[in-house]
């Protein structure tokens, strides 16, 4: 769950994603099957060795129960195990839980737990540990900025015996298992959870394949050693028993050229977020390879304010969608590393509906026709369309300070393209808190952000009426409020049947498309560059490279 802008805050990685980390290029979730990965399957895995991996951003708090940042979930993933594991196709595999059942009313999940698992501090994993973790996540004192939100309707856990627990909700929540599979709901050693939250920010203890005794050091990164006792890998892993690597070292190298140079000069074995401009070059360099995986969930999209202003008229929204050659802008800028988006969701999301793609085609003639029909027939001295003497102006608050992946260039080009069809896009560069205030109050015509999440339930987050910004930021940037859509989302939460979910989310995508409530920009691809010595690196559906199956050849 959660947005997967790897390296940036997990909260909507707006143009901003705020925070020191945000300046960095970010990477993201995979799914859709580690696309294009030639992920080393050559030869027999070798035990031993150290892998050094560099990412583009810095962590904030290692405890995934507290932090919403992708980078923190990524750091924690090697340390904590989850009850279940999520596969690219949306299916759930056993991990610390061997099996589970869902009550008919979808409000109670019963888990059978493994009884052979110990945390790296010697504590035994049992039902009480599950309860302690879920309770810790929702406790207000934890100040969880992501995990608690994914189980907002959690009411409590009943421990029947050491290997049986029941988790209760006040409302159906079919997104629970995919959430549970993320590192954010990972299981930490219960005795450590009584420590003050700030201590957990630098050091956590889990049962995972790696142990970090030093914890996370700001500005440096994190070092791990193998957990030699590890024998409870998730069912969807490629091997069992301890990890192949003796040690793992993750460094924070925010500067693109430094990170890329450190890889090509052999000082680092693999890096996240290869700069798009270097991708082709690295591919053609012998001894290196690129693995990409497309992030599931929302693309980097523009959202029109459907509630007021010029975009309250669906014809104007349709005209904006048809009148700008989005695909060409994206292709020219990212060299094909990030493909153009063709719908509200990324194609790698389970339940993606291909039938809507044609609605997002460029057609300038249609755009002009629609604008004429909408009454914007006049022209002023600068060539912009007018109606009743008023210019067709779209206000786009854009946080330039936090722009990554050249999103500021995209904004400039969209502005220029809109002028061609007579629309003035006024891109403002507000201060962070006034931006949040304006978004909450609906004082904008267009906003932009990406929101990754390994489930089509991302649609509910992005277009459900409950997510319309009110007190603070909200993810329903288009402020769409459609009871039929909301019903689709509620029904989908009430069923764990993937086929039924697919039909409901398909209908939702159709409705969103006919409402022209989104202008897709690009699909975020996680671009991982590595030496060919690095083998077996793969992605979990959430975005993060997994090191459990990784090994290095000499």
């Amino acid at each position, binding site marked *: 769950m959660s947005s997967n802008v790897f390296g940036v*805050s997990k*909260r909507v*990685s*707006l143009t*901003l*994603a*705020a*925070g*020191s*980390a*945000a*300046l960095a290029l970010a990477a993201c979730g995979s799914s859709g099957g580690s696309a294009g990965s030639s992920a080393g399957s050559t030869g027999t895995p070798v035990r031993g060795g150290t892998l050094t991996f*560099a990412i583009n951003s*810095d962590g*904030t*708090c290692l405890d995934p129960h*507290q*932090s*919403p940042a992708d980078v923190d979930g990524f750091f924690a993933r090697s340390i904590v195990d989850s009850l279940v594991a999520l596969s690219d196709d949306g299916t759930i595999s056993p991990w610390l839980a061997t099996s589970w059942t869902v009550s008919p009313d979808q409000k109670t999940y019963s888990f059978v737990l493994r009884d052979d698992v110990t945390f790296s501090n010697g504590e035994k994993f049992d039902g009480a540990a599950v309860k302690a973790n879920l309770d810790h996540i929702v406790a*207000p*004192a934890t*100040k969880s*900025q*992501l995990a*608690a*939100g994914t189980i*907002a309707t959690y009411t409590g856990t009943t421990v029947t015996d050491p290997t049986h627990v029941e988790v209760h909700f006040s409302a159906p929540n079919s997104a629970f298992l995919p959430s549970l599979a993320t590192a954010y709901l990972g299981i930490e050693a219960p005795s450590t959870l009584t420590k003050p*939250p*700030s201590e957990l*920010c*630098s050091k956590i203890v889990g049962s995972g394949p790696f142990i970090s005794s030093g914890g996370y*050091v*700001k*500005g*440096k990164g994190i070092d791990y050693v193998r957990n030699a006792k590890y024998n409870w890998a998730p069912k969807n892993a490629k091997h069992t028993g301890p990890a192949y690597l003796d040690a793992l070292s993750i*460094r924070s*190298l*925010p*500067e693109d*050229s*430094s*990170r890329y*140079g*450190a890889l*090509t*000069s052999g*000082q680092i074995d693999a890096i996240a977020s290869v700069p798009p401009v270097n991708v082709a070059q690295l591919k053609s360099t012998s001894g290196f390879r690129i693995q990409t995986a497309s992030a599931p969930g929302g693309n980097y999209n523009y959202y029109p304010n459907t509630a007021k202003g010029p975009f309250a008229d669906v014809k104007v929204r349709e005209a904006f969608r048809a009148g700008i050659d989005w695909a060409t802008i994206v292709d020219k800028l990212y060299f094909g590393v990030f493909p153009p988006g063709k719908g509200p969701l990324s194609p790698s999301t389970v339940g993606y509906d291909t039938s809507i793609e044609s609605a997002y085609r460029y057609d300038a003639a249609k755009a002009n026709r629609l604008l004429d029909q909408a009454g914007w027939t006049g022209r002023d001295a600068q060539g912009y369309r007018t109606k009743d003497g008023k210019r067709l102006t779209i206000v786009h608050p854009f946080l330039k*300070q936090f722009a990554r992946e050249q999103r500021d260039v995209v904004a400039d080009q969209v502005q220029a393209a809109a002028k061609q069809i007579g629309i003035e896009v006024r891109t403002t560069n507000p*201060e*962070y*808190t*006034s931006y*949040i*205030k304006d978004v*909450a109050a609906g004082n904008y015509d267009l906003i932009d952000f990406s929101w990754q999440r390994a489930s089509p339930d991302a649609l509910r*987050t992005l277009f459900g009426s409950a997510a319309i910004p009110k*007190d*603070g*930021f909200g*993810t329903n940037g288009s402020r769409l409020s459609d009871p039929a859509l909301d019903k689709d989302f509620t029904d989908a939460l009430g069923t764990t049947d993937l086929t039924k979910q697919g039909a409901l989310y398909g209908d939702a995508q159709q409705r969103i498309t006919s409402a022209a409530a989104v202008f897709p920009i690009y699909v975020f691809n996680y671009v991982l560059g590595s030496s060919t010595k690095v083998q077996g690196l793969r992605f979990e559906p959430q975005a993060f490279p997994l090191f459990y199956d990784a090994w290095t050849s000499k």
Partner: protein
Amino acid sequence: MTIALAADERRGGGRAASSARSIGLAVLRRVGYAVGVLWGAVTVTFAALHLKSGGIIDAIIGQAAVSPEVRAQIISDYALDRPWLVQYFDYLGHLLRGDLGHSYNQGMDVTTAIGDQLAPSFELMAAGVVLALVGAIVVALLTANRPRWIRGPFAFLEIVGVSVPAFWFAILLLTVFSFQLHWFPAIGSNSFRGLVLPAIALAVAPGGTLAQVLRDGLERALDEPFVTTARSRGIRETAVLVRHALRHALMPAITIAGWLAGAFLGGAIVIENVFSRQGLGTLTVGGLGRRDFPLVSGVVLVAAAFYVVINLLIDAVYPLLDPRLRPVAPTTAGPVNAAAAGITSTASPSVSATGADQKGEG
């Protein structure tokens, strides 16, 4: 006679007491000045971060989806619902007890957050300062009053060093000496080898400025009559340069050292980023973006303290180099100082204020 003696003693004792008192007063004034600077820095930071539109709570939460309970917890933990004046005095109260508070976004105490980053930053700056100083002095000594073909290239390099963005120069150093030649690591701030390139990148711009100021000062000093006198006494040229001329040339260089300290602080932020070093730079940039007041204020305090210390050091060094600025002690007044008074004209504008201050206090 006894009376006279007693009077003498009294006068002597009185002088000692008044001098002790004036030293005490001077120290007090210094401390007061330092506290004032620190208080001003904290107050300005508080105003800058609190008087902007939008609530700090929005900056802390950002785009995270948090429940109303968590929002309320954050507000109460950081006392954000209280009037800003109360928050301000509350913060000052904590400061007086040595408590810098808890960072809004870093999940740790500010003291810990800064403590972890202080050593690497200090290491980098110390290396940069030493490099810049030594480099500038050596270059200035070697090139002052030399033929154009020696002086020209160095002067040109200094201008290039000052003009080229530190960011770009750092990448260039990395590309050549780390990525191509593999002499130095691009990452890892814990080793001496890892410090070399960042220190050079940091030192080059301030070093260039210093070298120019120093050479300028040296050349002026070498034209002065006392140099001719020294040479006529048969003192070797090196000794003339180092022992006589350099002392004069150093005055303006030390005067700009306070300004250079700022250049080093600012430069360190860029350099830390390019070389992925631990340090206060990234911490500060991140904190500012999210209006993390306790963290930003903590860093500002450290920076302000740094400035205060540097300025104190500068004030302490002046009298060592310029006898006119020493505490009034009649025996040292003499023709040599009179000569010096005429000579160190280069230093006078900026020095005089501090010098007068020094005299008054001494």
